[in-house]
């Protein structure tokens, strides 16, 4: 049976999403892209994974008390996503805005499957999601991502490290194994999902330049303004 796919965007607004493992630099790149789009006088809105005011308190508490199973972890993130979709992303797309999403359904497709949830089930779960006009995948070697995470923060979080699935009792080792498997999932769906792959081991400027060029080409934004740091 074919896996369920997302709904085409029938609205005048555009949806741009970034994906990649933790430490791939995707959030930095998306905020640079958003600033540039704003400078082009486009109305730009942001939506981050796991940020619904209705749901995030439940997620926060569940994480703190380590209450999640793979299934409830998957469902609560889908609930959060549904709330943002219904009350935020859809109305903005209808209004013609550019919506920038930091992580999207693909995060669930990669992570939840690694946690042991059925691929068919999680693909169906997000069937209500609008297909992005542009999906950037920041591909980065595992060691580079780990270096960035370990260098930048005091502690890796329990669920980020996939500690709940018992890959290793050492949190850094668990993080390495878990993110490594997520990386494989992203790689394996890249073509099917039409990801624009950005080499996230390159310089920030190079990556941003590439993103802007792709955005110009795919969304038909005026070319002369597309250069990073452009005049």
């Amino acid at each position, binding site marked *: 049976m074919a896996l369920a796919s997302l709904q085409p965007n029938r609205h005048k607004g555009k949806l741009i999403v970034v994906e990649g493992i933790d430490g791939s630099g995707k959030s930095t790149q998306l905020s640079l892209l958003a600033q540039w789009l704003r400078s082009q006088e486009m109305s730009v809105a942001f939506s981050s994974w796991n940020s619904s005011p209705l749901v995030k*308190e439940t997620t926060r*508490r569940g994480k703190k008390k380590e209450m999640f*199973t793979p299934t*409830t972890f998957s469902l609560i993130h889908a609930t959060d996503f549904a709330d943002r979709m219904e009350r935020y992303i859809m109305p903005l797309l209808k209004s013609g805005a550019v919506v920038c999403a930091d992580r999207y359904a693909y995060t669930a497709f990669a992570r939840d499957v690694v946690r042991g949830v059925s691929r068919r089930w999680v693909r169906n*779960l997000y069937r209500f999601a609008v297909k992005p006009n542009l999906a950037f995948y920041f591909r980065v070697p595992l060691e580079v991502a780990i270096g960035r995470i370990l260098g930048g923060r005091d502690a890796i979080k329990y669920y980020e490290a996939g500690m709940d699935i018992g890959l290793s009792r050492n949190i850094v080792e668990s993080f390495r194994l878990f993110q490594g498997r997520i990386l494989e999932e992203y790689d394996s769906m890249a073509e099917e999902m039409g990801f624009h792959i950005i080499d996230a081991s390159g310089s920030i400027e190079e990556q941003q330049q590439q993103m802007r060029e792709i955005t110009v080409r795919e969304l038909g934004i005026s070319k002369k303004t597309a250069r990073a740091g452009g005049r």
Partner: protein
Amino acid sequence: MEVRIPLQFYSDALPDVDVAELQGKLIVVEGPDAVGRSTQVSRLRSWLEQSGHAVLDTGMARSALAGSGIQQAKDGNTFGPLTMTLFYTTDFADRLENEIIPALRAGFVVLTDRYIFSIIARAIARGEDRRWIETVAGFALVPHVVYYLRAEVPDLVSRVVVGRGYFDYWESGMDLGLSKDMYESFVKYQTRLIKALDSMQDTYGFVTVDASRSANEIFADLQRSIEGLFYSPKGETPAKKKIAKRRV
């Protein structure tokens, strides 16, 4: 001697659950709002315990994980239809994995006031895609038996009026904008829910119980049926037969 048929999942098995370990019985009481489900569940519980069975009873929005979040969202009247469906599914999954399955493993009789069928019916009543929600809820265990307490809307209305004394915002489906009048909205919404539940009877092998009768009469029917469930020579149940057929 009782022959035990292992429980099974509707479609997608939960990770890390071995159904062969589940020794208990899973009994579901479904039906529209105000039909008298909780009265029956509490009477069944006492009766089963008096007969020597350990009983766990559970119901919607009672999970440790999502119960309070759902309540807050309901209080704020801010639930979109998809969000509501998925929040309740999260609540159900949390109870299934952390209460229902452990209790079944320990050999309890699990009595549940509503199951995935109410979630599916509410989603259908709100115009969501049936196949979508049925697949989402496919990680549920197929119960040993599902009692569908069925009554017509006028019966429900009189029970709301006599019982609680007012119409509840969500039980009236006010989020659907069917009518500004709560009574009218209640009638329209509950009609939709009953229609949706009716449409699931065959697929999910509901045992339909006429709930327009007195609580005593309904209880007597349920008792008789549950006795059959415990002591049936084949240990086979209507819910299973139908599902087995459906899955071919």
